Each structure stands twice: as C-alpha cells, then as structure tokens.
C-alpha cells in the first residue's frame, strides 16, 4: 500500500494536461507542481517559514549533500530531515547517483553500483542502490528516488544506453527490496532509455510492472534538443496509468513547465529559479528581468506588477513588503538579503504558474492558458519557439492561432 493518495481532479479535453491532488505523509500537494531545490537542507537564505509563505509544500533535498553534511548518524539522531531543517511539509530526495555520474569524471558503473573516486581524497567508493535507499530512509523524505544508471541522453552508444536502461530496472528491484519504510515513504521509479522512444517504451512497461507509487522520467534536461525532450515525455506519458503522479526530473524553465504539463506530466524540479535569483534575475510572466541593469536603478515598481508574493504586494497590505526593483538593484550582488527577496519572488512565480495552470485545467481552459502564456512571454508570435509550437500542435493546441 503506497504512502500517498492520488486523486485525479480534471483532465484537459484537448491536451493531456491533468489536475490532481497528491496527498503525501506531510500533507496535500496540488498538481501540477514545481518543486524548488533546497540542496543542503536550506533554500538559499530563506527560512522554512518564508519558503512556506511562497506556498511551497514540497521541496527537494539532495541525498549526496545530506549524506556528507550532516550525515546519516546525525539524521538518525535528530529524527530525519524534516525535523533537522524545521520543515513540516513534504520533502523529495534524489538518489545521489546523478551527481556522481554527471559530475565526476571517474565514475564507473558496474552491476553492483556506481564506483567513483571521492572528490576530496580520491578514495575508491561504491554507491549501491541499497546505500542510496538506506540513506534516504534515514532522511525520511516523503518521496524517495531509485538509484538509476543514468547516461546523458545525447550519448551515441545505443548498446550502452540499453544496458543502462535494463540495469535501472534491475536496480529498482534492489531499491524496493532495500526500502525499509514503504509505509511512510514513496519510492518512485525512474524511466530511462535516452532519446530512443522504443527503448523508453520498453523501460516504461518494465517499470510499470513494479507498481511504484509514482513514476519519474529521468535522464532529460541534459542538453538534448527540446523537440527530442518533448517526444520522450509524450511517448512515455502515453503509456502511463492515470492514477499515479508523473515527475519529470530537472525541468524548470516556465516554457518547459507549461508544455510538459500539456504533454501529461505533473511534477517538476529545477535549481534554475533560485540560482538565477542570486544573479539578480527576476522571473516574470514577461520573461526574465536582470535587475542589475542600470535602468532598474530608479524603477519604483514592484518586481512584477500584479504578483501576489510577499515582496511584490504593496507595502501596507497584510504581510506585504512593497519591495521595488530599485531596492533589488541597489543591493543585488551587494547584500544577501536582496537575493533572498528575489528567491522568494521567483519561487512564488513558479508555484503560481503551476497554480494558474491547474485552475485552467480544472476549468478546461488550458489551451487558452497556453496561448496567453506565450503571448505574455514573447509578444510577437514570430518569436515563439518552434519546438513549443510543434510540441503543442502534437497535443492538439495551435498557440499561433488566436483564441
């Protein structure tokens, strides 16, 4: 019996977009959803209360980072990552394998696990599916991820890709066997197979047989063409059962989110909105504004007009700060507090985008939502990205056409 409840609320009558309620051990989460990444048990200067105020109810921690700091013994002593960071809502953790494989030159995958040299002292290390699950059990995250054999999707080695895909399935079995807390932690499988749609389908079928509480699509966001990305998501969601949440890993640009939702995905995570805040970039419905630019120095408007976040609502309203672009400009790259303000705004933006998508799906207005989204973002239709236009045509929406 899974430690979650998934309730499908509405389906778009044109696209594959879905609105649903996911209830996890630490409370309900409306889908579709964007999940910000609090890598080291902290979201870049925000207190858990401030993160909560962005309406976030599910965020990520990275298993590798928590293993290193504070480490399993402390997590066990403190009673898991929720208690450790004072976060009473839901957490999702990755397996930790991605960092090893994508970032360490010397990682080497064998059937046993990921072999790598410790970045600090070069000791030969082995990370197995059992290690990953055991540590995620100590972390106590509401959603845990299987260790997978992940290759960059653009890898030309089809044999190796197939080996990785099949190994990921076998590793899921080992993860399930090692999982000590299925009653209160949900283990998600990760579908692999690169950009080869048949391989993705084969993997999907094999993963579905394992009947995990949720399903992730992995190995994307690695530099593949957007059209290829969309093709994979579309091919996989086609085979997925309606009654489970679908998570596309590592996706976070607003355009990617709204298109992926149209293709039938529900959950996304990415460091981009919080990382870019630290460079003075505000994510808005009209695009990304770099508030470090001189023209914002005496711009006394809110970061984004009409935004409902704590920063942007006019001062005087309950709990609102009336932060101006001029203030962010003044302190961007000079005081950390300015970055914290932008982080709050950007996370709110991402969550609100998904909330508006959800409302549009429930009201069966998702195609109109998409048209408005692209019009606000690009203005001129000439500037709409071809991959998005094509991908949306593939699910029955022509965003070039007027409402």
């Amino acid at each position, binding site marked *: 019996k899974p430690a979650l409840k998934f309730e499908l609320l509405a389906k778009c009558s044109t696209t594959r977009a879905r609105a649903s309620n996911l209830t996890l051990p630490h409370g309900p989460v409306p889908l579709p959803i964007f999940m910000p990444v609090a890598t*080291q*048990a*902290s979201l*870049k*200067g925000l*207190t858990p*209360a401030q993160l909560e105020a962005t309406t976030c109810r599910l965020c990520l921690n990275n298993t590798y*980072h*928590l*293993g*290193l*700091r*504070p*480490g*399993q*013994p*402390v*997590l066990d*002593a*403190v009673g898991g990552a929720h208690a*450790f*960071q*004072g976060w009473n809502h839901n957490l999702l953790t990755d397996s930790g394998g991605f960092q090893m494989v994508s970032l*360490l030159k010397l990682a080497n995958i064998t059937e046993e696990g*990921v*072999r790598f040299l*410790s*970045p*600090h*002292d070069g000791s030969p*290390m*082995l*990370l*197995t599916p059992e*290690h990953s699950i*055991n*540590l995620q059990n*100590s972390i106590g995250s509401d959603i845990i991820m299987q260790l997978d054999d992940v290759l960059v999707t653009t890898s030309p080695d089809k044999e190796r890709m197939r080996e990785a895909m099949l190994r990921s399935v076998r590793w899921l079995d080992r993860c399930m066997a090692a999982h000590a807390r299925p009653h209160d932690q949900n283990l998600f499988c990760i579908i692999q197979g690169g950009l080869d749609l048949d391989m993705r389908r084969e993997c999907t079928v094999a993963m579905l047989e394992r009947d995990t509480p949720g399903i992730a699509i992995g190995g994307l966001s690695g530099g593949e063409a957007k059209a290829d990305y969309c093709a994979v998501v579309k091919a996989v969601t086609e085979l997925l059962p309606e009654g489970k949440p679908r998570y596309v890993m590592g996706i976070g640009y607003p355009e990617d989110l709204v298109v992926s939702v149209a293709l039938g995905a529900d959950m996304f995570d990415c460091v981009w909105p919080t*990382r870019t805040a630290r460079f003075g970039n505000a994510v808005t419905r009209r695009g990304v504004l770099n508030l470090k630019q*001189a023209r914002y*120095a005496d711009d*006394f408007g809110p970061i984004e007009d009409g935004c409902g976040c*704590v920063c942007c609502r006019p*001062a005087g309203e309950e709990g609102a*700060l*009336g932060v*101006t672009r*001029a*203030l962010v*400009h*003044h*302190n961007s*790259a*000079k*005081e*950390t*507090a*300015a970055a*914290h303000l932008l982080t*709050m705004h950007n996370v709110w933006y991402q969550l609100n985008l998904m909330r508006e998508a959800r409302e549009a799906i429930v009201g069966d207005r998702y195609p109109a939502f998409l048209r408005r989204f692209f019009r606000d973002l690009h203005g001129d239709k000439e500037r709409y990205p071809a991959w998005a236009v094509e991908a949306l045509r593939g699910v029955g929406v022509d965003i070039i056409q007027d409402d």
Partner: protein
Amino acid sequence: MTSDSDQNTMRFDLLKASLADGAGARLGRLAFSGSRTVETPTFFAITSRGAVPHVTPDNLEKHVPVQGTYIALEDFVERPQANLTRTPPIFKTPATPTRPRPLHNFTATPYSTLTLLAARRLPAVASPQGNTPSGISIFTSTGFQTLSTAAYQSAVATLKPDMAIPLADLTNSPTTPNSKRAARMAERTEDWLAQWLLSSSSQTASSETTTAIFAPTLPVPYAMQWEYLARLADDFASDIAGLAVYSSDIIPDLANHPALAAKPRLSLDAPATPHHVLRQIALGADVFLLPFVNGVSDSGVAFTFQFPAPAAAVSEAEEGNGTSLLPLGRDLADPSFAAQVKPLREGCDCYTCTAHHAAYVHHLLSAREMLGWTLLQIHNHAVVAEFFAGVRRALAEGTFAEESGRFQLRYEAEAPAGTGERPRARGYHFKSEGGDGKRNKKGWGKLGPDGEEATGLEGRVGGLKVEEVEKRLERDLTETPVVPDGGGRELEEGGFAEIEKK
C-alpha cells in the same frame, strides 16, 4: 530657531535617573509621533545598504526585536562611472500620505521600525581626503566623495528618517586628534549645526514626518568642546531632540549643561562587548548601536549571556569546565554541536531557538548556507534585546549597579572567536590597499578595548578590490557546490557510499 516644532518631534521622558542631574545610569522613554515609544536603555540594529545584514524586511519585522535601525547615507549616494551626474535613485523614492517616509519606502523598512539616518557607516572608514569647511568626505561603493552640509541636510529633508544625526567634523581615526585639530572639529561642527538649525526652522514638516535631530558631541576632551556644548545648551537645546555621543567619556561632563542633561544620548562610541555596554549605561548612555552584533553573527557565534547573570549554581552545572566564568557565546561551528537538538541558548524564545536548534545552525555554517547567518542574526539580536530588557528592569528596581557588577564577574571578557568560515565582506567595506583581509581568521575578540576603537570588524576588512568582493559575494550567493568536498571516510560515515577495500 523657534521651538514650536518641538512638540511634534520625538519626546524623551526620564523615568528614573540614579542621580538628580541626569548623570549616571537612567531609565527613560522616547515617544515618537504615532504613539510609538521606545524604552531606554536600548539598542538599534545597524544596517548595511539599508538592510540588517542577512535579514529581509519581513524577518526584521517578525523576528528581530529591535525598534530602530541605523542607516548610513553613504550607502546610497554612489556615483557609477557610467553616470557620474546622476541623482541617486533613493532621492526619487515616491511617498504617499500613508507611507510618507522615502527612506523607509526605498529600503522596505517596516514602518513599525524607526529609522536613524547618519552620513557615515558605523564604524566609518577614515577618508584620506579629510573634511573641508563645507562638508565631509564619505566612502561610497564607487569610492570617496564629498558630502556638503547643505546636500546632507537636503537628503534628510527628502528622505524623512525618524531620526537623523547632523554632520560632525570627525577624523574617524583611532588616534586622538591634536588640540588644534580638535578645536577646529568643534568649531566646524558648531557652524554646521547652526546652519542646519537656521535653515530647518524655515521649513515646515507635518507632524507625521518630523525628524528628530541628535546633535553630535565630539570624540575630543571636554576642554576642547565645552564652548560648543555650551552653545548647544544655550542656543539650540529646544531644537535638538537628543545628543549623538561619539565618545562616552564626555557623558559625565554633560552635567555641566543642565539644558542638555535631559536629552537622550545616542551612543556612537560603539562598545566592543556587553561589559562595555554596561559601563556606558552606568555613565548615562540611553540608545546604543552595536556593530559587534553583526560581527559576532558573521563569525558563527551565538550569544548566550543574560542580564541579570544567572545564579552561580545553575551556571556551574551548565558549564562544567572548572572555571567560574561563563562564556558570552558559543561557537556553533564547533563539531560538538553537530547533533545538538537544543536551542542556541537554553530558554531563548527567539524565532531561531523556537523553530530550529543548534545542530541545524551548525550544519548551515559548515555547509556555508546563508540561512545560518540569518538565524544567528535573529538570535543574537534577540539576546541583546533581552539583555537590555533585563537592564531596564534592574534600573526600575534599583538593582542595576549591583547586577552590573555581578555580570562583569560572572562572564568572560570576550565572546569566543568563531571558527566558522565567514560570509564575504559585505557592502563595499574594504580598503583600497593592503593584502587580503584576515577576516576569516579574526575573532570577535580582536575588537579593541573601549575607546581605542574607531574601526570594528567591518571597518578593517582589508585589501579587497571591488571585483574580488563581488566575486566572493557571488560565491556566497551561488555556490551550493554540486559536488561538495568530502573525503571517502566522510562519505562512508555519512552513509552515502562505502570505501572499496581491495
């Protein structure tokens, strides 16, 4: 120079003074328009570029129990190379009838927090250029520039802080000026203040936007400034709301000027430790600015002191190190806090201590996560606020002198040096020459003793060029290392993977 605006600005009531002439430790209350009151002795938080370091305005309002912030104009008036003639944006800040103070509006300071505007940061970086008869040299993020008395006064009139300190002719150097220089400081400061009061009497301000003026007294011997102080008392007393005291040594001498005795004293003679704060309170200082609070938070240390000091029996059990002295704080970067599921200080009811515990703050410091410094700022400001509340209770009960003595005996002289890696130098407080600042090696204890010190932690951050500072900030802000450092043993002990034995 009329005094009819007096009723509209801040009022100060001396509730209890140990001596009849207002000298010695005293209990008071500042009353501002909008029925905001501040019980004294107290302290205001020090901002950098308008922000209490690491604290966003929402956290300031909800979790930092200070009633005022100190803001330096030099943080806002830089002239970028690309636009040397621009009007600093802060002067264009809109105001509305319900939000009439542009300084609050620009910095998003909550209106429940009072603002105190001064020309220079505290402590200020000494300028190689020195001051002139028409104004002072200030240090902005684009370098030194001059600030005339007229421009500063106009800035105060435009920005409408709740309180402001008119310009003083200061050297901002740790060495005492010679008598010629000291005499000139007093003359210039007097001239500048006279000009200020003369021109401000011709301006009218609504009662909602008055600015209480704290006239500077100088960090020179009384003999060098008694004429100036006499002029303050005789001619200006009704126009100034309080005194900005740059050296607390002068406080006892203020008794010679009865018209000044009942004015609140804002100490800019930044004390280096709580012990020094108590000494200045004993002299009769009312409102404090404490650069050491921001510095201690940056060093990863959480204050643990209390006033009155706890009884000896309790403390020995707590402490167990054989000495009878209690530490002022604890270095949370110390590995002993790794699994400590306790508040930063037992019994502290601040946000940090009620929502989190020492183990988490330790983790944030060791992971260089910015939230660590935020949580320390919240806690340390709360501890200091509670310290002042304790002082006021003792003053009310008449036990201050006794408790102050006990505090001095119970606590160590200095807070422990933090071993955690610090955030990069904030703002632009770096000097233009010299080697890389030793910021990450220096403990808080390196702050000099009272009186010697014109530059604290922030002032002496050495040697970083602008680009370097920005690069460092970028590191603080952006880098959650994707693959953090960690040896094989740490990875194995942390439960992430095992070392392969071959």
